[in-house]
Structure formats: structure tokens, C-alpha cells
């Protein structure tokens, strides 16, 4: 899983003007880390402005209580997430020290050689490590490896292939979701449908990039 810990940008802008400008801007031009923050700023800006604007006329007395209860809920939720991550990051520490990600990376090399043709051996090393970290659900480790491999890539098609494979999720076991469900006392299982959908979406993503993207 990838976390959106993009650095804060300190540019202030007029909301409505920025919405129109940035939306067209974002659709037309490429998407960088800065642009990602713009998108979140737009979405967040629209939501809170619309809500408070609407409540000004319907329920002005409920604005602050809503913020307070939301903020309090975020603290208890982050305590829960802290415990879940405490368990899984510890497990990942063990798996990382055991070298399992490098073992998987080695096993993936024949596949990545076919998926990403005409790239250097160094680049392939980063691609396989990125994919194996993602398969294991180490999003934090996967992101810098992915950035590094895209930086080393020559072919635009290969860059798009790696970004799309990563953006459509290839994690084998969704540990956070499973833990949240276990904490709620879930009786049903979601592993089977999740795995089926994951295989389907990765296969579809690879096919679409192979067919639609030139060069």
C-alpha cells in the first residue's frame, strides 16, 4: 500500500480560480508530486468549503461539533492503525533481514526481462526489488525503488508499464485490511475474491499497456 506522504506545498491560491485552472492544467499536462498535492488540495478544498457553506444555512451550530468528533475519531483510529502497523512492520523487518525480497526478486527476473525489454541490468535489479517489495506489501520500501527504476529507464513504454502495474496493486496479502476486519470480528473471508481481482487487474493492466502504448 502506498501512503500519500507528499511534502506540504506552501502555495496559497484562490480556491475557485484554482479549481478551474488546476483541473484543466492537470488533465492536460503530466502529473508530478506537486500536481498530486494540487489534486488533493482541490478535492479537500471543495469538500470542506461546500460543507461549511451549506451548513451555514442549514445547521451552523453543528460545524464545530462535527470537526471535534471527526478529529477525535482520527486519533482513536490512528492508535488502532499504529498497532496494526506495529505488527506488520515488525514482520516485514524479519522478512527483510531474511532476504526473502531478494529471493523473490531473483525469481522475478525472467518475467521482468520480458515485460521491460531493452533496459540495463542495474535497472532490472531495481524493477525486480520494487515488484517484490510490492508483492509483500512493503509500500514504503517499494516507492523509492520504483522512482529509482523509472529514473534509470530509457523507454517511455516501460516507465508507463511499471507505474501502471504499481498503481493497480499487486500486493499478495492485504495485511492492513485483514487486520482491520479481524479487529471487527469478521466471520467472512475476502482473500479469495481479492486474489482473483488482483490477478485479473494486473493481467488487464499489462495487456492494455502492451497493446495501447506505442514505443
Amino acid at each position, binding site marked *: *500500500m502506498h*501512503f*500519500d*506522504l*507528499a511534502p506540504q506545498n506552501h502555495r496559497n491560491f484562490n480556491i475557485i480560480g484554482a479549481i478551474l485552472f488546476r483541473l484543466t492544467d492537470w488533465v492536460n499536462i*503530466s502529473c508530478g508530486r506537486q500536481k498530486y498535492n494540487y*489534486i*488533493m488540495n482541490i*478535492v*479537500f478544498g471543495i*469538500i*470542506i468549503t*461546500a*460543507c*461549511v457553506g*451549506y451548513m451555514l444555512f442549514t445547521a451552523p451550530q453543528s460545524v464545530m461539533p*462535527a*470537526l471535534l468528533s*471527526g478529529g477525535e*475519531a*482520527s486519533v482513536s*483510529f490512528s492508535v488502532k*492503525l*499504529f498497532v496494526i*502497523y*506495529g*505488527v506488520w*512492520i*515488525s*514482520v516485514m*523487518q*524479519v522478512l527483510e*533481514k*531474511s532476504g526473502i525480497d531478494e529471493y523473490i526478486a531473483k525469481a522475478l527476473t525472467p518475467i521482468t526481462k520480458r515485460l521491460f525489454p531493452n533496459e540495463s541490468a542495474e535497472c532490472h535489479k531495481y524493477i525486480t526489488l520494487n515488484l517484490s517489495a510490492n508483492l509483500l506489501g512493503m*509500500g514504503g520500501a517499494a516507492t523509492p525503488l520504483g522512482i529509482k527504476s*523509472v*529514473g534509470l529507464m530509457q523507454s517511455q513504454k516501460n*516507465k*508507463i508499464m*511499471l*507505474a*501502471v502495474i*504499481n*498503481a*493497480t*496493486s499487486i*500486493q499478495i496479502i492485504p495485511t492492513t485490511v485483514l487486520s482491520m*476486519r*479481524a479487529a471487527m470480528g*469478521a466471520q467472512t473471508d*475476502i482473500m*479469495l475474491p*481479492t486474489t482473483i*481481482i*488482483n490477478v*485479473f*487487474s494486473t493481467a488487464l*493492466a499489462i495487456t*492494455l499497456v502492451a497493446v495501447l*502504448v506505442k514505443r
Partner: protein
Amino acid sequence: MYTIPVLLIITFIIAAVKKIPLYDSFTAGIKEALKLIIDLLPYLMSIFFAIELLRASGLSVLLAEALEVPFSLLGIPKELSELLILRPLSGSGSLVILQNIYDSYGVDSYPARVASVIMGSTDTIMYVVAVYFAGSKNKKSGLAIPIAVFVSVAATVLACLLCKFI
């Protein structure tokens, strides 16, 4: 149900075979988790503000109603509208919505199971594509976002269908 304990015991056996100290790994891992959560809390709280305002103003109901027709054509339950809007944008934000869906409809309900599958089989498209291409000389991401969005929508529709049977 068995996934978590099986995964844990495999890890512990690997640790025993490779002589990796478990206690040290756990203390180090929890320290990492603490750092991650401190980084994450501002994002979580902001998203909680927005979601609580949506609820309190009643606009989330209007939003779900507005999306009901296109969603029902695709076979997607309308309870998932907030999740589907936030999923491509924010990993922490969509976890918040997922927890809300569990709380509102019950963890074994149909919307909650579909939401779990979607969380496990899609990712934060905008963030991944933006960050991956930020390090590249040629920053044009081309068809990356359209393809990833199309694949995620297809995966969502299939997940809704699959969860009716499995």
C-alpha cells in the same frame, strides 16, 4: 481467518532458521510504526474533518444519490461512493472510509466485503503515477493514468459481482 496466524508462524519459523532476533525486530518495527503514524496523523485528521463535515451537512447523502444511477448501471452499491472517490487519491483517507463502512454496515455485510476487496486490489493511482514520474527526466505520464483508472473501474465492477457469489 487462517491467513494472519499462518503468515505469522511462517515468519517466526523463518526467523528461527535464519537466526533473526524476533524481540529486536518487533521493537524496531514498532518504532518504525510509531514514526509512520506520527507522519500519517495530520493526513488522517484532515480526511476525518472532511468526512465528518460531509456527514453532518447531509451532503454525503446527496452525493450518494447523485451517483446512484451511474453506479447502479455498473452494479456498484451506492454505499461505496465515498470510497471510490477517495481511493485513487489517498491511501490513508480510503482506510478511514473503509473503517466507516465497517462501522455503518457491519464488517460481514455486502458493501463492507466489496470495499475490503477494492482496498486490497486497487491502489492510490494518482499518488503512485505522480511520484514515479516525478523522478524521471521525461515527466509525461501519457496513458498511465487513463489505463490505471480503467483497470481499477473494471476491477471494482468485477469485485461487486464476485462478492455476490463468494
